[in-house]
């Protein structure tokens, strides 16, 4: 079971959390202006890297807050967790 450090509560066991998929995928500000392919990419396309991955987590059975984390998908080690709105750490590459 992972040990996840909520930026608001500290280190807690994984069962208190819910994963929310890849982070830093911004919802288009004007969806109507986005073509079908771009919208499909926003909805469904994910980078699924082997290695460092920025992802969303919700401390659902805790403070109820969403935050972002950088996790290595191979080792499962969390390199960093940070609050929503804070910038993507340099370690993770912009996908597009």
């Amino acid at each position, binding site marked *: 079971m992972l040990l996840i450090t909520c930026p608001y509560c500290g280190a807690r066991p994984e069962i208190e959390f819910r994963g929310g998929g890849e982070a830093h995928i911004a919802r288009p500000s004007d969806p109507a202006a986005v073509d079908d392919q771009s*919208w499909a990419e926003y909805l469904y396309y994910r980078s699924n890297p082997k290695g460092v991955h920025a992802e969303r987590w919700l401390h*659902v059975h805790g403070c109820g807050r969403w935050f972002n984390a950088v996790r290595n998908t191979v080792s499962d080690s969390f390199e960093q967790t940070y609050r929503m709105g804070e910038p993507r750490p340099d370690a993770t590459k912009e996908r597009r």
Partner: protein
Amino acid sequence: MASDLSAHSFRLANGGRIDRSRPVRFTFNGRTIDAYAGDTIASALLANGIHLVGRSFKYHRPRGILSHGSDEPNALLDIDRGAGRRDPNNRATVVEALDGLAARSQNHWPSLDFDLGAINDRLAPMFAAGFYYKTFKWPRTFWHRLYEPAIRAMAGLGVAPTESDPDRYTQRNAHCDVLVVGGGPSGLAAALAASESGARVILADEQAELGGTLLHDRISQIDGRAADTWRAETLATIAARPDVIVLPRTTVFGYYNHNHIAMVERVTDHLQAPPAGLPRERLWQVRAKKVILATGAHERPLAFADNDRPGIMLAESVRAYINRYAVAPGRQIVFAGVTGSAYQAAADAKSAGLAVTFVDVRDPTQCGEEVGELRALGVEVLTGHTIIGSVGRKRVAGLIVAPVNGPGDVGAHRTLPCDAIAMSGGWTPAVHLFSQSRGRLQYRDAIDAFVPGASAQSECSAGAANGTYDLAATLDEGWRAGAEAAGTTASRSFAVAPSTRTDSGRARSLPTDRDADRVRAFLDFQNDVTVKDIKLAVREGFQSIEHVKRYTTTGMATDQGKTSNMLALGIVAEALERPVPEVGTTTFRPPFTPVSFGAIVGQARDALFDPIRKAPLHDWAEAQGAVFEPVALWRRARYFPQAGEGMHAAVSRECRAVRSNVGIFDASTLGKIEVVGPDAAEFLNRIYTNAWLKLAPGRCRYGLMLREDGFIFDDGVVARIAEDRFHVTTTTGGAARVLVHMEDYLQTEWSDLKVYLTSTTEQWGVIAVQGPKAREVIEPLVEGIDLSPGMFPHMAVRVGRICSVPTRLFRVSFTGELGYEINVPTGHMRTVWDAIIKQGAPFGITPYGTEAMHALRAERGFIIVGQDTDGTVTPDDAGLGGMVSASKRDFVGKRSLVRPDMLLADRKQLVGLTTADPKLVLDEGAQVVADTKAPIPMKMLGHVTSSYWSDACGHSIALALVSGGRARLGETLHATTPSGFAAVKVVTPVFFDAEGKRVHGGLEHV
């Protein structure tokens, strides 16, 4: 000398750790076995001259006890502690002897001594590697009907108990600085060092006593004290320190992410009369800052023909039985092996007064001074020999050996008579937990074994688990690991005399002059895999150990090949003529040893297995004789049968009451979310498909919510209580996920909106009063709210009091009738409910359940999200296109609604179905097709989502999702029934009160 069958006939006169003042009696296959406290079942059986304890998995060969620990592959027994306390597949080597316990052997019929399944042994050529894959592959239907049941019946090991387990199991979470796994010499030294600095330490060992090999070491002196004295003193020192937990009988079975360790503590099985209140087992989940793996090593067997006869054991185990249990596994023992440790075992056997011969199967150039030393004790030592086979059947009677004169040149056979053989093919570090931690193993040529390499987690291996076999080095290494784990730099060196014999040769298949294809040398005793099987697999082209393992099943039994893996790997490498590391090693997975279901389940059984949420009126409904149904975690009253009434009659009566007079319904399970803040309306405007900005306070609106992919996610009525306050309702099952969905957008996309979300599901109880008489019933109870239609129209909300209790009173209807949903604080539900029932009695007020509610809403064509939708249904598909605001620039899911796929004409659309036979109620889930004569597989147009008998219509009704459904109105289609197809007509999905006038009150409007 006592007869071989008399009690304790093989018990040595002196020594051992057993308590001779405390006799213990249990039974084995009905026979009484005399033992002492401190015995295991295995040591007690051996003390009574019993070696034959089971039949092997595939060939039903007689099998005995191989080892003295948790690596035992053979001696699996059914253990019965009485009254439902029976479980199979217990290793006799780890179960402690206890008065009254009944042990039974497994996998034989009719008896252990005479087993018909042993015919498999004669048919052995049939059971070669890949036998199952080659034989039972065709025809496919034979697999589950014939092959699998027959194989399982023939090859099964134990039989699972059928009774409910009467014992209690608990679970405990713990945190520590240092977790030491294994209480042998390195583990004790590690715990001693770690605890010295005040670190929080947990020391866990699977055995009843801590000490590991020190428990049967009669010769080593540690820092000038006897090994056992050092053990006892060290343990006492450790245990006396604060913040140290010492756990015997505790197996660390799982090493998971981030140093999350699972272990099971066997609390009461060893107690004659367990104190009330103690659990049988305790599952520990430990989060350790540092883990020290001091798990020791497992001895390997030797691969010679018929190496599996009862009486053939591992050499160190023979030593343990002699020294620790004062048991002679035999009176005439032949030791055979390639290790220095086997020489020590032979010396110990000799000094216990047993007749000993030693066969060294190494190349004579590898032998050292140990040969001379053993000979000096009067033991015949044969060097330069190989083993040809063994004799005996239910007990070994001799070992056939021969000198090796040169490559391929085996000399004359000689049979060494014996009643036990002690073999030692080398040692394998127990790297299971290290491997589970995802650490990388590396091959160490000098010891012909894989040892821990690069760590993946915060752990460290010490002692034999790390390939360090010398006792002094083991202690030093353990100490260093413990000190480092606790963050100190203290160092210590242990003095041990005499020094440990750690030399080891490399055992593979032994030279023989017999036809290798006609003999069987076992590698995996539990799965009956032989050297021949491995070689066949290699001949057939398997090269990776992972593939060989799956093809031959070697190492795949419940012991995970603890004794056999390295030998099997060596044989594969030998056959492929490649070095071991190129063949690879297998991955170990939890659990290290089998774990009871009880420990895993813990308290989560019966009522706590799947907790039931009870609505506030649950007890009342129960007292009324309601029949309940599960809805998410809730139990809801499905209908309220009166005397002699079946479901159909009850539901029809309840529906009729609502349509003609008034019904009352507990709707408390509806999800509720309080949405508050200056931007609350804007927030809802973005979350729902329809518009909210202009909804006036005091009004309600039905809202439809999509996921971003455009599919219906949830729905419910939303009331605007004040300019900045909304009372949102969700489906019963969707409450939690809707809140998560809302929070997600609020926190991550629109963090600029000033909105607060609070779940109020548990705070508001909801009483639905529905029917033409609803207003008359509640009017006298309501204070401060004018219920007249002009002042309180349909889809309005008022705040006031009912029966003096604060209420949010909704005028809404899910039945199509005039209706109210009365929200009151949950604690007041019963008071208000009782008052309404009393007030409604003259009107024939009738409680109704979810079944009537479903039928009533289906008559009006109202969907239930999750029943009439399935996550692939758009608003338009559901006939709710009108709910989608055309003027809003954006809302969640809007963009997806114009993706090309969402606009296809053949999308499944919600329609009504009526059956040609008006009494036929279709099955929900029934498939809908156009042409019953079409070839199979025929095109499926859709399926029935809801289906009921409609009392109001006088015929059955159904809702269905049908491809291009709205263009098929009036068409006849066919729905599957258990007895064939039924003709159905596609209709608009509204069956009653098509104009929707009844919600405005009273029959006069119809």
